[in-house]
């Protein structure tokens, strides 16, 4: 049990001594991404090999949370950022284990496992040498790839729960002032000032009050909350305890989406361990303040990311939003004052308490403070999670950290803000990324998903995709969203099938306005954004689909045919076996042909051809 700062320091010292006794520490990323790339097998095999060499006392192999560079998983880091190995075990697991043992025994750097960038002559040993990491400012993610998320002692040894102790010495109102002055804004999508929300909840009448962490990360393409809940769950818990104390609440809830089983598992362990240590429960640090946290699992409904729908879901009902004439800070969960923040927002709180609001305020732009985690995915070379100061340009994120477009294709657009956001074209790549500039462009920050698209992506198809998503996920409570989005989908679907009519685009714009005005919740009101932003920046592409019945990117199946250029085909036999319907015929070193009657236009042949012989029109 930890009841004083001395005991907290004692535990930290004990852990530091324990890890200090090892001559080598090997950190294996065991986030969802690396696990699916085989990280657990690497962990087991490496431990076996180390035991066989009788090195178990000298070498500590630990499972950590997500390191961020999921593209190159499984990732292993030696010591304090000394060496980063990537794609370990992807070619031959036993060989790679032998190579790892070499590094374990005498520190030999294995060239084969190092990260390789564009410039093949450049050697990247430490993560600090890799542009993906060097360009980041890691605050919220700082400990993600460092500590074992299932061990509370590790978190404490890195300064964990000191912020709770400090906060409990402060006046609750002073904490709220700090959060207000820090400029922290909600990381989940809305970008509302966190401190202002806390104050409203504290000032609202009614008991008890509730504190909620929104871990229903439904934006497709965003996974920073998953990574935080899996990689550093105590940071979220710590933020919530501080929030509870400031607001005057003793009850916390974490709502995690059903698709994140590992996050639920690690949060459950973290809560249990914090209770064992007295850091959750009654009388934390002998302050007289008590706080508990319960986990609620979602049921695979996107709309439950909306605050009122989420609260309804916690109450055991369907996740349908309600109108917010009365804010949830006044009447939320069970009609009591409830303060809901996103997981990443909660994880920022301990840092602000530890380092002071002035420090947080010094990072970012005048209106958007601090750092923000983005999930950089789609057609970018280095996919994964990046944490950068607000105000950095899209260009820096996509081309410097992300390494540019895969296959060196042409950049077309970047989608931010998920189904509530929009597509931003190339001419705005030098725009600083913050809450307000993205909104100005007709998109939004959202929770930080950044999906990069190249010349092979059709913007009409992207609009169709988001509409389909929203048709599936609309809760059905209000008519503008339920029926309006469906009508928009039908129009765009027709355009993609070559049945678009003159006037369709204008009709879409009209419907969009009605949905924006008439929908009940923010998700409905913002549902037309993906269509409006693609019309705004890529109107030509809509017109070509409608007037010329052509899909310039070769995505819309009804408007595309694939052929093989006999001049360029070398008969390398690469495309034929990859074709899922076996419609490519040809012999080795002879020109291949596509049977158009069987072709399903999946584009696999185009993607695998190394000679540019497959063409689409």
């Amino acid at each position: 049990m930890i009841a004083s700062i001395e005991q907290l320091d004692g535990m930290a010292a004990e852990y530091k001594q324990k890890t200090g006794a090892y001559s080598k520490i090997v950190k294996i990323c065991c986030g969802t991404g690396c696990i699916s790339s085989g990280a657990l097998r690497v962990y087991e095999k490496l431990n076996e090999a180390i035991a066989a060499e009788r090195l178990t006392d000298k070498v500590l192999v630990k499972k950590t949370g997500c390191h961020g560079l999921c593209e190159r998983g499984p990732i292993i880091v030696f010591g304090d950022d000394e060496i980063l190995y990537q794609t370990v075990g992807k070619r031959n697991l036993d060989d790679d284990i032998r190579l790892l043992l070499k590094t374990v025994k005498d520190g030999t750097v294995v060239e084969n496992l190092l990260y390789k960038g564009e410039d093949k002559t450049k050697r990247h040993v430490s993560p600090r040498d890799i542009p993906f990491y060097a360009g980041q400012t890691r605050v919220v993610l700082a400990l993600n790839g460092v500590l074992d998320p299932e061990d509370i002692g590790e978190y404490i040894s890195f300064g964990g729960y000191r912020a709770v102790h400090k906060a409990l010495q402060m006046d609750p109102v002073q904490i709220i002032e700090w959060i207000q002055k820090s400029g922290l804004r909600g990381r989940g999508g809305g970008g509302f000032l966190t401190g202002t929300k806390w104050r409203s909840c504290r000032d609202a009448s009614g008991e008890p009050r509730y504190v909620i962490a929104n871990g229903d990360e439904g934006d497709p393409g965003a996974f920073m909350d998953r990574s935080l809940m899996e990689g550093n769950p105590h940071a979220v818990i710590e933020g919530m305890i501080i929030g509870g104390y400031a607001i005057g609440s003793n009850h916390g809830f974490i709502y995690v989406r059903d698709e994140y089983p590992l996050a639920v598992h690690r949060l459950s362990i973290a809560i249990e361990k914090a209770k064992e240590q007295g850091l959750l429960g009654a009388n934390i640090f002998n302050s007289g303040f008590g706080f508990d946290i319960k986990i609620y699992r979602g049921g695979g409904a996107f709309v439950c990311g909306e605050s009122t729908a989420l609260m309804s879901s916690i109450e055991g009902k369907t996740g349908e939003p309600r109108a917010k004439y009365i804010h949830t800070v006044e009447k939320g969960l069970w009609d009591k004052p409830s303060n809901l923040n996103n997981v990443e927002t909660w994880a920022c709180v301990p840092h602000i308490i530890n380092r002071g609001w002035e420090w947080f305020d010094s990072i970012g732009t005048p209106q958007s403070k601090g750092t923000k985690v983005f999930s950089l995915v789609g057609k970018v070379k280095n996919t994964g999670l990046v944490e950068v100061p607000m105000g950095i340009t899209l260009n820096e994120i996509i081309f410097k950290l992300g390494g540019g477009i895969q296959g060196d294709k042409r950049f077309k657009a970047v989608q931010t803000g998920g189904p509530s956001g929009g597509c931003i074209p190339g001419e705005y790549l030098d725009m600083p990324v913050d809450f307000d500039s993205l909104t100005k462009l007709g998109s939004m920050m959202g929770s930080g998903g950044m999906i990069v698209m190249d010349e092979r992506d059709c913007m009409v198809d992207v609009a169709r995709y988001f509409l389909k998503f929203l048709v599936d996920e609309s809760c059905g409570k209000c008519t503008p969203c339920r029926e309006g989005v469906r009508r928009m989908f039908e129009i765009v679907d027709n355009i993609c099938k070559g049945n678009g009519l003159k006037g369709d685009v204008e009709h879409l714009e009209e419907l969009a306005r009605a949905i924006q005005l008439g929908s009940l919740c923010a998700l409905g009101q913002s549902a037309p954004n993906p269509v409006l932003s693609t019309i705004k920046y890529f109107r030509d592409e809509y017109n070509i689909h409608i007037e010329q019945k052509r899909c310039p990117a070769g995505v819309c199946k009804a408007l595309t045919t694939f052929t093989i250029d006999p001049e360029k085909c070398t008969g390398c036999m690469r495309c034929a076996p990859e074709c899922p319907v076996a419609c490519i015929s040809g012999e080795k070193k002879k020109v291949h042909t596509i049977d158009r009657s069987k072709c399903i236009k999946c584009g696999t042949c185009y993607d695998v051809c190394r000679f540019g012989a497959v063409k689409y029109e």
Partner: protein
Amino acid sequence: MEVDTAAINTIIDKYGKDKSYLLAMFQDVQRQYRYLPKEAIQYICDRLHIPFSKGYEVATFYASLSLTPRGRHTVHVCLGTACHLRGGPNILDTFERELNIKKGETTENGLFTLESVNCLGACALAPLVRIDGQDYGKTTPGSVKKIINEYGESS
């Protein structure tokens, strides 16, 4: 069908008969039966003193609950934005062709149920497929057959 009331009682009691955990109870029942039998909804509603209509409303609202029996293995093909752009729809098409069922259906031998999902949060490894909690990243139409073969009749 008859449901095992003892097992369902254990689930209800695990959550302290708290109505707010209705969804969690349904999910736990589904884990046992691989779907949510109507009789289980009725039984839980009776014990929690809530109308069946309310329980049915919750059971049909959440995508993760199924009122029809599912196959031994559930294939979730991710169709999040990143997966969509990197060929997710082709992966779903390939599963449909190889298993000879449409999305939402179960194979005749009861081995597979095919579903799509709107984002599993492993977008860096798109296109992603999850089968019974095991993730397969960077899948291709060619790798689909191999994945299916991992789950033979014996597994």
